[in-house]
């Protein structure tokens, strides 16, 4: 990746020109009540979504949630059953992929194994019947930018994972698309390379000011890359927001569970108070305790849930200093997992059998350890307890 950085710096004119061209044409993507059905199976149900021009959006969700189908509908590789798809202000529902001005980067890159890197990158231009001279100029230019000039005559099998990824990127960018669609572009890389590549991608996106829409099932990836995250489940959108919003204020139990180590409690709303910015709700959880959480106003007596992030809790020895305070519970340490920077503690509430996770900086844990089997008190502030409406 470093080579690509230095290469792009060494070629300010080419990069700048392309940058200008791409940034000036970046457009947003809008989905209005889009549904995709395969026979009786609904893969994507009635989703509406605004993706701003020049933004980096991640569609996040487990496999089968409809995120890839959504991406493929945008690209034009799947028909839209109902609803509208706009790229910029053009309705593109019925346009073939090439006329949508999108380009797609595939999982495992889908580089043609029988063609050299150069031929791979040239392919889209050749299909568009561009004159040979222009093809040569544009391919050479983009290979320079991604730093693959030296590898132009190699077959993809002779490239490293990172180089393949850059070749795929070059192939996608060479046609100057308005929107770049990325289908799990990092999943084929090992952990280290993935982290480096992902920052590279983010840098490129910013540099060219293009609209990137990426599908991923990794929350880290989504957090690291996105301006906007779209969390999907069972063909629907669960939550749209910035990474911070998703992280801090998950909107549903699914998001809370999927996004991170949240401990989720289900109970009945017994009180609703009005706080400064939020409503404060009291949730009674059978056998565990009574928790105050922040959220929107909701009906009394309704069954609802709240979540507390496992790293937002405080662990103190049992018994609690003041048992009458809300937002605390008693649990027994079941297992301790040292994972490096963080130590993960698994606990169980004896009365109900509910399992919890507590995460703490290993540094702090080592200073103040607890043995397996011990009873402890976990507590948290109302600020850290989020009400989940569904």
């Amino acid at each position, binding site marked *: 990746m470093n080579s690509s950085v230095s290469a792009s710096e060494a070629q300010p004119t080419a990069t700048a020109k392309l940058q200008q061209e791409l940034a000036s044409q970046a457009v947003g993507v809008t989905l209005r009540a889009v549904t995709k059905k395969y026979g009786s199976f609904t893969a994507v149900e009635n989703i509406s979504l605004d993706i701003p021009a020049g933004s980096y959006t991640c569609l996040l969700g487990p496999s089968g949630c409809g995120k890839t189908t959504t991406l493929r509908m945008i690209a034009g590789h799947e028909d839209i059953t109902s609803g509208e798809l706009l790229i910029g202000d053009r309705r593109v529902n019925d346009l073939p992929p090439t006329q949508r001005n999108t380009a797609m980067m*595939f999982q495992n890159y889908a580089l043609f194994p029988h063609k050299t890197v150069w031929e791979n990158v040239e392919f889209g231009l050749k299909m568009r019947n561009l004159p040979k001279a222009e093809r040569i100029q544009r391919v050479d230019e983009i290979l320079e930018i991604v730093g693959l000039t030296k590898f132009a005559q190699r077959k993809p099998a002779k490239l490293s994972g990172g180089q393949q990824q850059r070749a795929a990127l070059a192939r996608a960018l060479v046609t100057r698309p308005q929107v770049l669609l990325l289908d799990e572009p990092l999943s084929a890389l090992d952990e280290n390379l993935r982290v480096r590549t992902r920052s590279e991608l983010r840098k490129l996106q910013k540099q060219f000011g293009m609209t990137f829409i990426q599908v991923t099932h990794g929350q880290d990836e989504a957090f690291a890359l996105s301006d906007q995250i779209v969390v999907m489940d069972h063909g629907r959108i669960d939550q749209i927001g910035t990474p911070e919003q998703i992280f801090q204020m998950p909107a549903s139990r699914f998001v809370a569970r999927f996004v991170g180590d949240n401990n989720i409690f289900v109970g009945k709303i017994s009180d609703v108070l009005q706080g400064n910015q939020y409503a404060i709700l009291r949730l009674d959880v059978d056998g565990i305790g009574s928790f105050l959480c922040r959220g929107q106003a909701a009906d009394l007596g309704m069954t609802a849930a709240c979540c507390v992030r496992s790293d937002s809790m405080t662990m103190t020895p049992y018994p609690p200093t003041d048992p009458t305070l809300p937002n605390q519970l008693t649990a027994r340490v079941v297992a301790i997992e040292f994972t490096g920077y963080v130590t993960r503690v698994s606990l169980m509430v004896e009365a109900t059998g509910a399992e919890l996770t507590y995460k703490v900086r290993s540094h702090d844990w080592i200073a103040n350890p607890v043995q397996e089997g011990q009873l402890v008190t976990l507590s948290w502030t109302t600020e850290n307890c989020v009400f989940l409406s569904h």
Partner: protein
Amino acid sequence: MYKTWKGVQPYLLATPQTLVFLLFLIFPILMIGLVSFWEFNGYTMVPGFTLSNYADVFTEVSLRTYLNTFKYVVLVWFFCLAIAFPVSYFLAFHIQNQKLQIILFLICTVPFWTSNIIRMISWIPVLGKEGLINSLLLNLNLVEQPVEWLLYSDFAVVLGMVHLYNFFMIAPIFNSMMRIDRNLITAAEDMGASGFQILKEVILPLTAPGIAIGSIFVVTLVMGEFITVRLMGGGQSASVGKLIQTQIGSLQYPLAAANAVVLLIVTLFLVAGILRVVDIRKEL
């Protein structure tokens, strides 16, 4: 001690295979090579050294027989490819249901459920002078005399061999096509390739190893053909295999051996030629 054992082990493991290979492939071929230099009279062969058997291979008639065999090879190869490629393409890319795909592929093997000879003979009532096709043509008044070139002709020989060997072309091509990552096709579409361009730029080059393997099967099979040539050619058509068969039938073993050696060399050259054009290693 243990170290020596470790060193010897791989050789021991390879020994049975090597012995079988030597005994049933190398040794017989060497014997054929040896016998091809022997002399013979009407009823038996005599150890010796003569090149006259090879001189007989390079006579005009033999060479014409070789040319005729090449003609069959080229025609059968061409028609097998012309049929196998679209069939495999249809199976691999147009049948989405995997079960149906397997069923249809198995249907391609149906001709193999009965013996070669029966398959050949069953053409006779179809192609003969009083056969199905001729009856139909006569009844429709399309012809006045039965069409004779349908049977006992080069047409019939080629038809019979295409019928016999088509599957050897379909299987490797289908296999190659099934290995093509579907994302490559989507990617090509994404970059604006038309159906024909995808075929030409992506599918065809990636199917080339399968075509090469199929071609090797078909070419080697047709090079040694004699049953189809005899049955479908009505005994009138010539091929090297049939020449060898007749020579063996007439107890002219050394002559047959010389022909077999030449046939083997020619076939190896053809295979080498195919391998030069296409790299099949990724299929193996």
